[in-house]
């Protein structure tokens, strides 16, 4: 099966930047059937709330990967919504003008229910970008200020129904997260993050349908063979697995891959 990984960090804490490391990653991915990766950036390099200069450095790294390997990497622009409308729009515009950018990546600068998220929605609309929001259940992680519970990401989607949003980390948001996403046609869920808990993929497809679940790994924090095996081993029709692994992301991001 052909696979697109919608959630990767090829460079993490500056590891993986060297050309030989990038080539090795691409070869490793291709061995597993991964024909394309979405690069989200070295998002924790400068802590939870990077400033404008730090964001530019990280986004330039994403741009470099997409420029040097356009057939293999598509980039998202990493933003800090707390920096305000001017900074958000300026960095989104700077990156959207470059080839290979299709989305916005948000991490843990703020909760997705924060009013500053309106700037992100404006940037997404203006530059036709999909928003990928790090999300995790705060039931056991007591940090709602920075972590976005699935309730918060779903609220962001509800407030901006014209913006396409990916709720990251299916295992992190869990069964409750799937139910939060249900009924919100502008909200997708990616399967990245966490151990391959049994039954969750099938549950997500049962409640969201076969078109709103996207394969993601969270590489290098997670292993592609495991994250792919979780989908291949799920009790789902082959056509549905192919949608999760490839078709849904290709359509969402309008990727025309050879």
């Amino acid at each position, binding site marked *: 099966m052909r696979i697109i990984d919608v959630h990767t960090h090829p460079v993490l804490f500056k590891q993986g930047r060297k050309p030989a490391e990038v080539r090795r990653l691409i070869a*490793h991915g291709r*061995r*597993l059937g991964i024909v394309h990766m979405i690069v989200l950036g070295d998002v924790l390099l400068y802590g939870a709330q990077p400033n404008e200069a730090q964001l530019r450095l990280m986004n330039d790294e994403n741009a470099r990967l997409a420029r040097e390997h356009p057939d293999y990497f598509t980039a998202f622009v990493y933003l800090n919504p707390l920096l305000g409308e001017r900074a958000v729009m300026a960095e989104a515009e700077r990156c959207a003008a470059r080839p290979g950018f299709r989305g916005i990546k948000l991490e843990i600068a703020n909760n997705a229910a924060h009013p500053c998220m309106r700037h992100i929605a404006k940037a997404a609309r203006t530059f036709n970008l999909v928003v990928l929001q790090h999300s*995790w*259940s705060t*039931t*056991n*992680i007591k940090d709602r200020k920075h972590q976005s519970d699935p309730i918060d990401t779903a609220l962001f989607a509800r407030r901006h129904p014209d913006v396409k949003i990916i709720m990251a980390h299916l*295992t*992190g948001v*869990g*069964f409750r997260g799937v139910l939060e996403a249900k009924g919100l046609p502008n909200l997708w869920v990616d399967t990245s993050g*966490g*151990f*391959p*808990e*049994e*039954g969750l993929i099938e*549950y997500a497809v049962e409640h969201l349908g076969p078109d709103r679940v996207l394969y993601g790994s969270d*590489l*290098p*924090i*997670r*292993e*592609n*063979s*495991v*994250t*792919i*095996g*979780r989908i*291949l*081993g*799920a009790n789902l029709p082959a056509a549905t697995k192919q949608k999760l692994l490839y078709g849904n992301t290709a359509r969402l991001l309008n990727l025309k891959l050879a």
Partner: protein
Amino acid sequence: MLIDTNVNLGPWPFAPLPELSAPQLAARLATAGIRRALVAPLAAVFLPDPMPANEKLFAAVRRTPALLPVPVINPALANWREQLDRCRAAAPIRAVKLFPNYHNYRLTARRMDDFMAAIAKTGLKLIVNVRLEDERHRYFALKIKGVPVKDIARFLRRFPTHHVFFTGLYRPELKQLAADHKNFSADIAFCEWAETVKDLLSVMPARRLMLGTNTPLLSTRAQADKLRLAQIPARTKALIGTENARRFFKL
């Protein structure tokens, strides 16, 4: 042929998992290339006395030779010697399993002296389960954490002649222990990073790692693929996937 050292049979209250019969479990494992498995009774985790769950396990796997029963013993209970004797009489077991965090005792407890001496006399192998699930995703009212690494380290220092098998260590925990201790082996169920097995082999010899999937709580196929698709020599893969378990548990 793979041997899985970390499989469970029975109900789990916190996820909508199908409760598999022993033949169904063996069939699921076989789809991932696993032909033999060490199976513990999941219900023993929550029962005040693990014996009813052990006996149910023995009966369930009697006609499914691919599944080798691993009874759970609770050394914090007054009758642990009786538990051990009854299990040995009931089935040809190769190991017993402990769940210290679920059964409310510590590996550093004084009572472990007698227990370890008794285990040594039987010739059985000891499996200590560190965790069954990622603590970040456990049921909100269940406040059970993994067995602390510092307890495991003290335990290994205190019983240097025992070689203990741990299931459910996280990758950083395994790496931390591997730096200072040689008298343990571990499964890879809760270890994950890019190229997991190759990464673990940088700190732990292949002869002390074994395949464990934590089926049915985690995806069997995904966990088996962690080893099956690892870019390591075939000989190393065979050790981790089959031969270490065969040698250690005398299968």
